[in-house]
């Protein structure tokens, strides 16, 4: 590794006022955040959100599954699509996923899918894997996160690891998933209640919100495939209620939109309601607010603005008639771009030509 060429460390060149400003606060209380730590907390935020989000989706799907009439059953495959592990699953259980419609096979598929999603060894996106990754990242980031948050995550990881067998029955699964959701909420609570609103917190929050937005679009994307507008039967309501519930959005939706759940209003709520923290636009607003507190965030902010614009300008009622999937793809690309810009700017910078800074001496 050869050190990058520095700026000539000669006489200090006059720096811009913003820089001066920064220095004066730092000389009082020096803080710094390593690029590697920023990346670790960002990913901790993402993985925690992924674990919680996946747990909600599986739980709600299990509940809704019970309500569906025989024959209308959408099966368990949509869960795989939401998490984006259809091909990994197919590889692991090629027979099970291809087999017929018989109840025996459906039951078997349920068991396999659930196991795969919760803790499948070959599934890097399983809930257990997400918790493990969150823990590893928080472990790396221990110096910058509250001790209690790390301990809560460690406890969640231990509790989940110790009870994997429990997760494989329907009754035990509910408990296991609840534990995951409660554990993640507990960590969030500790972070909100005890962590300084510093740069580390910003990266964690950004990670959470990007993951949240991504998950919401995935849920909508997969669920929309089974959407048949104007069918008008009572299962439509069950369907959209499940969509809302899997994003913890049912009650907020009900309060915001007194109409009973249906495609258009659900979509509008989950995409554009700025007051609901899992709506895509609200996630983007939060990410943008956090980015504004960081230096050199211009590119990431641009990407964020682009994504917000796409979401805000969606012609929601028309999307229910067609083109929803394409639209959601567009949103996901925009979300990816925000991640990309953050990654480039903060986690993998080259440092060439950067102004070195030191605490005023």
């Amino acid at each position: 590794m050869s050190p990058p060429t520095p700026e000539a460390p000669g006489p200090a060149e006059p720096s811009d006022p913003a820089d001066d400003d920064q220095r004066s606060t730092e000389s009082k209380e020096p803080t710094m955040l390593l690029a590697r730590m920023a990346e670790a907390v960002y990913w901790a935020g993402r993985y925690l959100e992924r674990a919680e989000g996946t747990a909600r989706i599986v739980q709600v799907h299990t509940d809704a599954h019970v309500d569906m009439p025989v024959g209308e059953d959408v099966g368990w495959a949509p869960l795989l699509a939401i998490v984006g592990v259809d091909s990994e699953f197919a590889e692991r259980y090629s027979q099970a996923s291809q087999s017929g419609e018989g109840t025996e096979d459906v039951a078997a598929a349920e068991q396999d899918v659930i196991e795969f999603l919760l803790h499948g060894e070959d599934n890097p996106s399983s809930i257990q894997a997400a918790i493990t990754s969150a823990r590893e990242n928080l472990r790396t980031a221990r110096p910058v996160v509250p001790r209690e948050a790390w301990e809560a995550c460690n406890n969640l990881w231990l509790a989940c690891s110790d009870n994997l067998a429990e997760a494989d029955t329907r009754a035990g699964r509910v408990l296991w998933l609840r534990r995951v959701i409660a554990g993640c909420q507990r960590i969030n609570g500790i972070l909100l209640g005890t962590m300084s609103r510093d740069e580390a917190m910003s990266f964690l929050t950004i990670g959470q919100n990007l993951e949240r937005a991504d998950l919401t679009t995935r849920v909508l994307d997969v669920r929309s495939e089974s959407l048949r507008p104007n069918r008008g039967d009572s299962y439509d309501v069950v369907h959209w209620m499940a969509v809302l519930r899997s994003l913890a959005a049912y009650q907020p939706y009900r309060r915001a939109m007194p109409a009973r759940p249906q495609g258009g209003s659900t979509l509008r709520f989950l995409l554009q309601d700025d007051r609901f923290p899992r709506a895509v636009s609200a996630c983007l607003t939060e990410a943008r607010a956090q980015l504004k507190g960081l230096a050199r965030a211009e590119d990431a902010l641009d990407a964020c603005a682009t994504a917000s614009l796409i979401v805000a300008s969606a012609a929601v009622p028309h999307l229910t008639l067609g083109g929803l999937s394409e639209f959601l793809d567009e949103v996901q690309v925009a979300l990816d771009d925000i991640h990309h810009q953050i990654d480039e700017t903060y986690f993998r910078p080259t440092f060439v030509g950067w102004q070195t800074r030191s605490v005023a001496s």
Partner: protein
Amino acid sequence: MLDLDRGKRDLDDDPDNDSGTNVGGDPGSGAATAAPWPSYDPGPFYDEMVSATGEPRGAAEALWGHSSDLGPEALSERQDAADREMRAIGVTFTVYEGSTGVDRPWPFDIIPRVMTSDEWSMVESGLVQRLNALNLFIDDVYHDQRSVSSGVVPSELVTGSPNFRRECVGVDPPGGIWAHICGSDLIRDADGTVFVLEDNLRVPSGVSYLLENRMVAKHVFPEMFRHYSIEPVDPYVGRLANMLASVSPSTGDPTIVVLTPGIYNSAYFEHAFLAQQLGVELVEGSDLVVLDDDCVYARTIDGLQKVDVIYRRIDDLYLDPEVFVPDSLLGVPGLIRAWRSGRVALVNAPGAGIADDKKVYSYVPDIIRFFLDEEPILATVPTLRCGDEDSRHFVLSNLERLVVKPANESGGYGVLVGTQATEDELAFAAKQIEDDPKKWVAQPVIPLSTAPTLCDGEIAPRHVDLRPFTLLGPEGAYVTRGGLTRVARTAGSLVVNSSQGGGSKDTWVVDTRLTSGPSGGAARSGGGGAAGAGDAAAGGAAAGDAAAGGAAAGDAAAGDAAAGTRGPEP
């Protein structure tokens, strides 16, 4: 030559035969009418809690009484609670199984080891004296080598040592201090005398476990803390922060970092713990870069930030691939250059390891006399250097009664315990010594003291050592009040290393003036709770509420005393 009969009570015994097997075998050995553990018999060893006549030592009386009231079952429940807590808060250490590291919960025995503050004050001054002298010696080694020219140590001890770093010659670290943090290994022989067994001056570890042990002990044994004025261990972190700041080459608020080899290192838990407690960043080598101005910078999200002080937890040889092991990915190219130019402080300084090998160990008493003009306060285990002809003959004819150690290894590698060796092992050791005598030193077997330890629901004596931590900076010295007690968990075993299945204990330095003194708020009857302790314990309980203030005062006094014994500034 060597008084091999010192601590004789042990030497003729087979150490495997002591505890456990002959528990309760000597009914005459204790007048202990109220003994909580009637079958507890430490045998010929000095026991930390029980005297030779089977009575609790003064400072341990309340603990003794309370343990008796609780009984082994309740103690086992507390032990389970402690194990669960260690696991929950993620106190782990890494053991290597093949090439993969596995995190193990930190093994902790809930029965504390108790010492008096009076004894501790003696140990403390001894440790500070020793660290002062060793630092003067290291600074001398890399400058004038007066200790060599005056004949205190032979020149080959210095220049022939694999721990001598040519790159350090002529460097002047702040205050002339090289070894800022020392983790000493202390042991007690059968008479109760405290010996220094090792000075660890490179990257000593264990202090995080010391601090976590105390926290868990408070949670599982809260009532005991009301019976005693136990000196706090928490001030260590603040002292460490001050010491690190005091060696900064910059005048402003220094940027301090902890440098770790990474998440897979066996001590990573401690590295993260210390960074978190200090409120500084935990960096890996790849997070740092040395630029052409010879300054060290950290790669932060806001660009490169100058680093002033590096508390490094990487061995010398991996610090800088430009100077040492060239293919090391752990270090920072140019780091030694930056340190030599005085732009960054390294704690401990490179090259400090010259003063902690086994051969130098045998000269430490002379080093103390030479540099400080004082007599050593703490005992040193008599050490024979096999390079000396007389010593070699003595060692070879007494192998079965000695411990033979390679002079330059650490961590117990290559150590032969003569009393436990087979004929073949003895013959092999003799050959090794004859082949390369200078590589070997020999010491008498020190019968380590024992402490009551919970083993499978029973309380049994197990051998212990003690690792306190000493800080030394330009502004003074500080010694932890107590240390990390390590305990062998197998009966008769002298191996206390956690990597070899050893456990640990909280160590209580008890202020007996507060505990047993007639004053100290004797009018108050303490917090009630666990009763049954003797009179001394009642006194301790009475002083309970005064404990915090009293202990804090004791701490300040200790700091002053420690500073007072600081040697002449080089």
